[in-house]
């Protein structure tokens, strides 16, 4: 057993421990304290991940690869940014952030463990635990009247899915005699597929779709993102997506290839439904975070449909699209941290009328990111859209082309409402000063977007290399 391979996780555990100790024994533990500790923990984990990117802790059970490293890197990066911004939030609210940071670290731990897991039992267990943990995340501070019913509903369905998954995993491992991906894949390949075998595998894959928030299993996303506090919303919006996406690919490629093939028509339908629900749902909302939640459903619908072909090019295309969309969504959520009035973080559209007048930079970045989400050139989203369209054309999937185009037009209608509120409506309320750090983050994300759009070839080459291994 190579313990070095577990170093990132060890670092996170250590950080958690330190957090607990600080919480218990230090009187004046501010949000900044917890953030600083978490930051160093994440940094250490990040470095360790990069150094031991191809080390295995337990062969066949827990292995690091180029694939898992890539996604872990993104998880750590996005998590770090979320933590930084969350510190600003908790500082302004002046209540404890220990619960938040500790839960985040736990969540990251489970997610990264899931990425490296090569055993279905381990994978399912950590992912389900990590997902169930979100119940506490949702309950973090905030308005309990609003978050309590949402968290209960969330828990109910999360438990149902956890039961499905664990039942499926249990039976599958019983039948196969092993939990390793390779063994499962071999079993599926050499034996005829009964409906039970199909469902045991399907539950795992569908559970991941549920966690991602793909329709028709999306029903929790809008409520959760709309009700939870901003740090929780921004974390859940971006970070876990990379993990679930990567695990989905891994399972489909290495363990559940056969059920995945059979499930494809259903996944195709789910992707189409996601595109439509995402686009239409965004139009019916006045809560900005719910609008972005639906946007995420739209994005994931396209990502899923790209994955279905399941070759090197399609995975690459789907990942590029996912990455640029998550960058844009991340940018939007980062901007949300600047939308405050009288100490309250604003979420409803009508509260943000005339934002451009008093916060032109914030309004401008939100405009840029939303336009990028629509795939408008010359922004980064266009890069993703080119990959998407190129893929559809290559496989002559003209129905999808039409569906995506209609979806973009409908989603654009929702974004136009937002832009109109920011830029064309009269200012109704005064906005509080935003922390300088938020501006730095936004500027940083903007610069990344600009640099990538001007010179994307090097960045895309590296990603292509990393992803190449998965289908090999």
């Amino acid at each position, binding site marked *: 057993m190579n313990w070095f391979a577990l170093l990132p996780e060890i670092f996170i555990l250590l950080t958690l421990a330190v957090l607990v100790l600080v919480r218990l024994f230090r009187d004046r533990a501010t949000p900044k304290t917890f953030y600083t500790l978490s930051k160093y923990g994440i940094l250490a984990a990040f470095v360790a991940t990069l150094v031991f990117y191809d080390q295995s802790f337990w062969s066949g059970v827990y292995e690091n690869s180029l694939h898992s490293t890539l996604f872990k890197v993104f998880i750590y990066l996005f998590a770090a940014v979320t933590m930084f911004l969350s510190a600003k939030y908790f500082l302004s609210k002046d209540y404890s952030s220990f619960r938040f940071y500790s839960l985040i670290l736990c969540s990251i731990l489970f997610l990264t463990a899931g990425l490296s897991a090569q055993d279905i039992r381990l994978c399912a267990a950590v992912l389900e635990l990590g997902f169930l943990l979100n119940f506490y995340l949702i309950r973090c501070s905030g308005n309990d009247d609003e978050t309590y019913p949402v968290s209960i509903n969330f828990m109910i369905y999360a438990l149902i899915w956890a039961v499905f998954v664990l039942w499926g995993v249990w039976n599958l491992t019983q039948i196969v005699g092993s939990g390793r991906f390779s063994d499962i894949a071999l079993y599926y390949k050499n034996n005829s597929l009964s409906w039970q075998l199909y469902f045991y595998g399907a539950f795992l894959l569908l559970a991941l779709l549920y966690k991602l928030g793909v329709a028709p299993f999306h029903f929790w996303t809008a409520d959760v993102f709309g009700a939870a506090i901003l740090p929780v919303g921004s974390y859940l919006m971006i970070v876990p997506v990379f993990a679930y996406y990567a695990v989905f690919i891994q399972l489909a490629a290495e363990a559940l290839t056969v059920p995945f093939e059979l499930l494809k028509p259903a996944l195709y339908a789910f992707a189409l439904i996601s595109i439509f629900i995402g686009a239409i749902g965004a139009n019916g909302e006045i809560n900005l975070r719910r609008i972005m939640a639906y946007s995420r459903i739209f994005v994931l619908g396209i990502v899923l449909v790209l994955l279905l072909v399941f070759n090197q090019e399609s995975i*690459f295309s789907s990942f590029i699209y996912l990455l640029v969309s998550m960058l844009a969504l991340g940018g939007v959520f980062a901007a949300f941290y600047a939308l405050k009035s009288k100490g309250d973080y604003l979420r409803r559209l009508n509260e943000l009328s005339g934002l*451009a007048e008093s916060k*032109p930079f914030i309004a401008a970045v939100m*405009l840029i990111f939303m*336009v990028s989400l629509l795939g*408008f*050139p*010359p922004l980064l989203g*266009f*890069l993703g*859209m*080119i*990959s998407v*369209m*190129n893929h*559809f*054309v*290559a496989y002559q999937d003209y129905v999808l*082309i039409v569906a995506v*185009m209609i979806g*973009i*037009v409908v989603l*654009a*209608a929702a974004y*136009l*409402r937002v*832009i*109109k509120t920011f*830029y*064309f409506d009269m200012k109704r309320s005064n906005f509080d000063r935003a922390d300088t750090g938020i501006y730095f983050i936004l500027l940083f994300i903007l610069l990344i977007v600009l640099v990538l759009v001007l010179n*994307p*070839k090097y960045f*895309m*080459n590296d990603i*292509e290399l990393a992803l190449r291994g998965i289908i090999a």
Partner: protein
Amino acid sequence: MPHIPYLLILILLPLCGIFFAMCSQDNDKTKGRNVLSVALLSVLANIAFIIAAFLNASSEYGKMQLKETYLWLESPKIMLSFGVDSFSLLLMLGVHLALLIGIWGVRNDYVLQKSRMIFTLLFLSLINGFLAALDIISFFIFFEAMLIPLFMLIGMFGEIKRQAGLFRFMLYNLCGVLLLFAAIMVLYHHNKGALMLNQISDIRMSRTKEIVVWSSIFLAFLSRIPIWPFHSWVSAVSSGIKNPLVFIVANLMPLSGIYSFIRFWPQSMPDTVVFVMAVLEIISVISMLFIALIGLINKDIQYKIFSFMTVYYIFFLLGSFLPTDQILLNVGFSLFAFMIIFAAIEVLVSFQEDEREEKNLSAEGILYKMPRASAVFTFMVFAGLGLPLSAMFINNFVIVSGLLVYNFSTAVVALLALIFVASALLKELFVRRAKVETVSDNLPEDISKLDACFMWMVAIVLLMSLSDPLWFMRG
């Protein structure tokens, strides 16, 4: 001599202007003068570069020069290519001059001047890229990207009464853009790589595919031009804009449709697509007539100007449909003068309308007490009618001749529509010049001497281009 990337500079210079505009200080004391100066300097610098580009290029139509290529993506492999001929450079110059006039027209409007100039410069940068694009991907990038500054300018400064109309306008354009995107990706994929605009007609696909792709392309371009029956969405927005600079920007968009048709129009038309041309012509003439008729009955001067411009755009489009490339240079010459004329007319009308609203005067006789404005407005209207005061005179003659030879009935309808819009504009001129006695303390204020000088300089530019806007290239 080191190679100077003129086209890249023309695209990036306005972006640099945006940066300086964002950094410029504007408060109650400066009243938008700093950002205005930045915008004017950016545009003038760009004009200087365009003239420099002209002097380094030959005057032939169709011979792409000053080519620049940049590798953007490796997978899929996308090279962004830029290049110009005299036609596209001329259109670029026309756009710059039109925007210069528009910026001049809003120089005394201090409210949100910074945002206005930033979006205008962004639009300028993108339209330069569009006019310089040589391959389909870069063409598409700028074709779509232009919508963003357009939407922002109209929404923020257009004073549109019905926002729903603006949304519809944007979504309609977006539909067109997406159709083009799909068609371009099909072409790109079919060619298995980079595809230049002048190579499109060499692509051969299955019949159904050709029909769908070409129809999508043409529908996308038509979405930029106020074509019947969708003209009301465009007209409701374009004619409702009060700000002259925004009006000019909004009404430069049909130019992108026409230019797209010219660049994409295949040298050798695939047989499957020949019928598309007939459909396009029918739609064009119906639109011309329809919009001309509505312009005739509408009392709003902005609508009259909009209908005048739309009819002329479609007229130029019909000219570009003629089965000869030789006439395209004439279309370009006419367009060059046309853009400058309508920009000047719009700025002058906007000034008059502001005076009207401020002093509660009627349009009748408003120019009677504004001799400077009256003189220059009359000049511009005459030039717009096609009298020998600009390049439109001789070049419209060439276009009409071509139309009469190749398609007589189309030419007749087109001429009828042109006569209608000319009548409407002329009638408006006479109404505004009528002799009306007004109370002495409620007289409209004439344009300043500086404004009059500027407008007469524009008139001189038009007169100098009477025979050939490219006179300075011919030595």
